[in-house]
């Protein structure tokens, strides 16, 4: 069983290993563009600077490859070269459906498993050359694509719509509960569909003149990457050198409100990291809501501080959330060790 978990972790890390440079490229270019552009009511305003807009677009292109590369190389880790095609295709479909990073993980594992099964089929020697260039790419992509479109895409889309309908009803209800739910959703998949559902609800509320949901989101958005980065700084001996290096990148992405910065940590140990960052983001969102934080721009993290109401409460919320994540993550490390 332990051997098995080690294998699955190795598959997931293979995907992460190839995806990291894409996160860095996209994250940094987008961040530079956002940081240099004036912050308007609708978010960063690129109307005056086509060059910054181009930086933004280059960064976005790199980000859009993140999920396919993640899925492709998870499948590569499992099934070697024949895994690449169904993995990439499955990841691209996950992107297209809006299933985000979790969709990519599932698509990659599925593609790898399908190819592993096909490779077990005994074929006559004269048929062998056709397998890797024709049969496996077509058959495996068909299976993965079919499952993604037919079985996984629909539930995710339904989850999304029911979630946003539920949010609309709750908007008039208990504000603390709303903040906790938004915070949990923001952290849950780090930039995936659940995160985006909460984000778009809050962004829509800005247009209605209600800046509080976005204020809660803005605080929650930066807590997972800031918290995980802070954890590697506070408990240096608990983390491997490569995790500490990922920690620096994570901190930088947290500062500019890119939740994806925590993905390397969450992808390696999803069952541990995701609950921890969810609780930290919930705490930050609730403090922001109670402190009357309002955010006028649809973006999060310390970078939007200039367009936030009640800045002190905003800083307090982020600090508390990130500290909670760091202390919890390190406590779990200390208690259970680094291995799953």
């Amino acid at each position, binding site marked *: 069983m332990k051997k098995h978990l*080690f294998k699955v*972790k*190795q*598959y997931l*890390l*293979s995907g*992460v*290993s190839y995806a*990291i*440079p894409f996160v860095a490229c996209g994250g940094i270019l987008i961040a530079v563009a956002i940081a240099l552009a004036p912050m308007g009511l609708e978010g960063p305003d690129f109307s005056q600077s086509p060059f910054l807009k181009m930086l933004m677009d280059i960064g976005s292109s790199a980000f859009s490859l993140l999920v396919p590369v993640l899925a492709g190389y998870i499948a*590569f*880790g*499992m099934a*070697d070269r024949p895994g690449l095609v169904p993995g990439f295709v499955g990841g691209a479909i996950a992107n297209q459906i809006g299933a985000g990073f979790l969709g990519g993980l599932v698509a990659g594992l599925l593609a790898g498993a399908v190819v592993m099964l096909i490779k077990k089929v005994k074929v006559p020697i004269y048929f062998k050359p056709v397998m890797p260039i024709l049969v496996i790419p077509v058959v495996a992509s068909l299976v993965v694509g079919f499952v993604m479109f037919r079985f996984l895409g629909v539930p995710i889309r339904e989850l999304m719509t029911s979630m946003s309908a539920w949010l609309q009803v709750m908007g008039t209800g208990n504000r603390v509960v709303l903040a906790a739910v938004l915070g949990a959703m923001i952290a849950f998949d780090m930039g995936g569909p659940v995160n985006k559902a909460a984000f778009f609800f809050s962004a829509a509320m800005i247009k209605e003149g209600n800046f509080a949901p976005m204020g809660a989101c803005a605080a929650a958005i930066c807590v997972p990457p800031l918290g995980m980065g802070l954890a590697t700084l506070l408990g240096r001996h608990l983390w*491997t*050198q*490569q995790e500490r*290096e*990922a920690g620096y990148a994570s901190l930088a992405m947290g500062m500019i409100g890119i939740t994806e910065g925590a993905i*390397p940590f969450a992808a*390696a140990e999803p069952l541990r990291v995701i609950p921890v960052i969810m609780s930290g983001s919930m705490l930050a969102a609730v403090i922001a809501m109670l402190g009357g934080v309002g955010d006028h721009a649809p973006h999060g993290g310390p970078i939007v501080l200039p367009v936030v109401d009640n800045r002190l409460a905003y800083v307090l919320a982020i600090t508390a959330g990130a500290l909670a994540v760091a202390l919890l993550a390190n406590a779990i490390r200390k208690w259970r060790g680094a291995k799953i």
Partner: protein
Amino acid sequence: MKIVAVTACPTGIAHTYMAAEQLEKTARQLGHQIKVETQGAMGIENELSAVDIQGADLAIFAADIAVQNRERFADLKIVEVAVQDAIKNPAALFSRLAE
């Protein structure tokens, strides 16, 4: 013993090379011959040739991610460990090989 080894960590900039260094150092101390291929962020370096692999008694994979071009080692006994094992306690790893 003649040993070939591959090291690979997820980021591929530090641990891959630290593990390679430890394996080489320990093997030399114990009087083994070793050649270590690193699969890092810059790609494959110090690549193992077919002759290297044919002449080896066994292969060590110290990797936290999938090893590339694994099929080259099809005829060889492979010992698989985590990168940390090679860095922290290479001596224990080599005493396991002796068994």
